[in-house]
C-alpha cells in the first residue's frame, strides 16, 4: 500500500473509532457505574439522529438542534430512569435485559409513528461544509475532522470529570459501593439518575453528530448496538480509557480489514471476512483477558 494512502486509511480508521467511542462511552458508564445492561442504548443513538433531523428542520439551525436535542435527551434519560430503570438496580441482569429489550421495541415503533420509516439526511452546517484536498483525486470532509476533534474533547472532558472532580469522586464511590456511599449522605438515587441520563444523552448526542455523515434511517440503532457491546467488552466494562482504546482498535481493524488481503498460513483472508474480524477480536480478548484490556483484574 502506498504510504500516502496508508496514512489516509489510518485517518479513516481513527475517525471511525472516535465516533464509535462516543456512542459506546455512555454504555460503558451505565454498565460500569450502575451495573445496568442497557440493550436499548442503540435506540438512543437512533433517536438522536432523528431528533437532529427533525429539530434542524424545525429550528432551521443545526447547532441549535444539537443543543436542544442534547437537553431533550437528558430529560428523557432522567424520566426513563425514574419510570423504569431505578426498579432494576437490585434485580438480576436478566430483568434488565428483558426491560431494555422491551424498550427497543417501543422506541422503534414510536419512531415509526412519530417520524415514519423514511431515510433522511441532515445537511452539514455551512461552516463545516467544505472538503480539504489530500491527493489529486481525494479530499477529506471538514465535518469529519471536526467530528473527530469533538470526540477527543468530549473524551478528555469525561476523563477529567470522573477522575478530578467532586462529582466524579461521588460517582466512583457509588460505583464501588452503593450502600456505603449512601450512608455517607450522598443522594445515590439522584446520582444514578444523572449518570443514566448523561449516558443516554451521550448516545443520542453521538447520533446527532453522526447524522450529517451517516444519514438517518430506522435500523441505525440496532446496527450500532452490537458493535458498542464489542467496544465495551474489549475495553473492559466501565472503563472509559478502555472504551477509547477498543474503539480505536476496532476502527482500524474494520478499516484495514475491508481493503487489505493477506495470507495466514496459506489461507487467504479476504475483505469479505471483515465483518467477522471484530468478533474474532472480541473472542480472543475474552479468552485471554476476560476483564478486557483496561478492566480491573478478576479473581
Amino acid at each position, binding site marked *: *500500500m*502506498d504510504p500516502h*494512502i496508508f496514512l*489516509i*486509511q489510518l485517518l*479513516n*480508521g481513527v*475517525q*471511525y473509532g472516535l465516533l464509535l467511542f462516543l456512542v459506546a462511552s455512555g454504555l460503558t458508564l451505565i454498565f460500569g457505574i450502575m451495573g445496568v445492561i442497557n440493550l436499548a442504548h442503540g435506540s438512543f443513538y437512533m433517536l438522536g439522529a432523528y431528533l437532529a433531523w427533525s429539530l434542524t428542520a424545525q429550528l432551521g439551525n443545526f447547532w441549535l438542534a444539537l443543543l436542544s436535542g442534547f437537553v431533550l435527551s437528558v430529560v428523557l434519560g432522567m424520566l426513563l430512569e425514574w419510570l423504569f430503570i431505578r426498579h432494576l438496580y437490585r434485580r438480576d441482569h436478566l430483568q434488565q435485559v428483558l426491560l431494555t429489550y422491551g424498550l427497543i421495541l417501543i422506541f422503534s415503533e414510536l419512531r*415509526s409513528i412519530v417520524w415514519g*420509516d*423514511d*431515510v*433522511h*439526511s441532515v*445537511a*452539514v452546517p455551512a461552516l463545516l461544509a467544505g*472538503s480539504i*484536498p489530500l*491527493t*489529486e*483525486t*481525494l*479530499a*477529506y*470532509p471538514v*465535518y*469529519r475532522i471536526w467530528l473527530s476533534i469533538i470526540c477527543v474533547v468530549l473524551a478528555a472532558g469525561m476523563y477529567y470529570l470522573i477522575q478530578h472532580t467532586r462529582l466524579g469522586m461521588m460517582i466512583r464511590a457509588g460505583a464501588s459501593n452503593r450502600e456505603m456511599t449512601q450512608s455517607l449522605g450522598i443522594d445515590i438515587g439522584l446520582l444514578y439518575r444523572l449518570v443514566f441520563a448523561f449516558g443516554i444523552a451521550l448516545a443520542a448526542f453521538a447520533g446527532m453528530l453522526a447524522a450529517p*455523515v*451517516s*444519514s438517518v*434511517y*430506522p*435500523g*441505525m440503532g440496532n*446496527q450500532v448496538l452490537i458493535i458498542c457491546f464489542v467496544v465495551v467488552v474489549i475495553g473492559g466494562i466501565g472503563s472509559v480509557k478502555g472504551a477509547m482504546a477498543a474503539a480505536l482498535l476496532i476502527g482500524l481493524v*474494520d*478499516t*484495514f480489514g*475491508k*481493503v487489505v488481503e493477506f495470507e495466514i498460513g496459506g489461507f487467504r483472508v479476504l*475483505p*469479505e471476512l*471483515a*465483518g467477522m474480524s471484530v468478533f474474532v477480536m472480541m473472542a480472543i480478548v475474552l479468552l485471554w483477558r476476560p476483564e478486557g484490556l483496561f478492566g480491573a483484574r478478576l479473581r
Partner: protein
Amino acid sequence: MTQAVQNAQSRRDFLAGVGALAGISLLPLAGCARSDKVRVGFMLPYTGTYAQLGVAIENGFRLALAEQGGTLGGREVEYFKVDDESNPAKATDNANKIITRDKVDVVVGTVHSGVAMGMIKVARETGTLALIPNAGVNAATGDLCAPNVFRTSFSNWQPTHPLGKVMIDNGHRKAVFITWKYSAGEQALQSFAEGYKAAGGTVIKELFVPFPNVEFQALLTEIAALKPDAVACFFAGGGAVKFVKDYAAAGLKNNIPLYGSGFLTEGVLDAQGDSAEGVITTLHYADSLDNPRNKAFRAAYREAYGMEADVYAVQGYDTGLLLAQALEKAGGDISNRDAIIAAMEGAVIDSPRGRWTMSKAHNPIQDFYLRRVENGDNKVIGVAWKGLEDPARGCNM
C-alpha cells in the same frame, strides 16, 4: 377503512384459531366461506424500511383495477393482506398465512428478494398464482422459474447490464464496482461485469461493504488510490443516500464519474441533494419519462392518493394490468389456470414505463433508460438498451 376491515377479518381468524385450540371449533365460520369473488392477497412490507414501497405497489395495483371498474374479468375482488416485514426468516410463514389461511387465488408479493424466495417456495408447493411486483432475485425467473410465477418488475441482472455499454461509449475503459456484500449486490456486479467486458471494458477491482453497513470511507480512499476511469455501483435506500453523499464529500465526484443501477437515485434524491447531481443511472422507468401514458398515470395516481407515483407504483400498476388482462381473456374464470397462465405469457402491457412483453421465463422484456440527475430529477437522456431480456439461466420452461 379497508385496512380496518382487513384487520377485523384477520383478528376473527386469529380468534377462531385460538378457539379451535380451546376445543371449540369455529371452522365453519372462519374458513371456507368461498364466494365467487376473486381473492387477491398482498404479501408486502407494510412496516420497516420498505413500508413505503409496499404501499406504493398496493396503490398502483388498486389504481389499475379501479380503471377497469374495480373488477377482474367482470368479477368482484376481495383483498387480503399480510405484512411480510421484509423479514426472510418469516417469509414462508407469512406466505402460508396468505395462501393457506386466507386461501387467496393470486398472491402479489413482494419487495425483498429473500422474502420473495420464501413466497415462491410456497407458491410452487401449492400451485398458487404468484405475481412479483418488485423483488429482483434472478432465481425467481431463473433456477426457480415456474408456470405459476410471474414477475412484473425486473431481474437483478437487468438494471446494471446496460451500464457497461454506456460507460464504454463515454470513454471509460477501467472501472471499479462497489456494492454491498449480499446476493442482490453480487448479481448486479455479475451482470455489470458481463456487459462491460463484452463492450471492451475491464473491472479493475470489486469492492464490497458488509450489508447493511454504511461506513464507506475506507473504500472511497481505496478508489482514490486505484484511480479508475469511472465507478459503477449498486446501492439502494439509506445506503444509496450515504454512498452518494460520501462520494461527493470525498471529492471523488469531480474526478471519477459515478454510475449506478437506477435504484441509486430512486426516491432518495431529496436526501442526496447536490451530491447526486450528474450521477448517471439505468432503469426501466423514470418519473419524468415523457410519454402520454406516463403522464396520464401520474395524474391519476396523484388524484387518487395525493402523492407522486414512483417506479414501485408503476410496477404495482402493471401487476394489476397483467392480472386484469389475463382474467379478461379467461372470461373471469380464476379457476381456469391454464388459460390465465397462457394469457399472461402472451400479455403485452401498455405501461407508463413503455410497452413491455413477458419473456419465456416470465420476466419483463423491457427498455432500459439512461438517466442523469439534473436539478434533483432523474432526467431521461436516452434509451440505454432496447428490449432487454434476462438470460433466465437455469430455467427450463
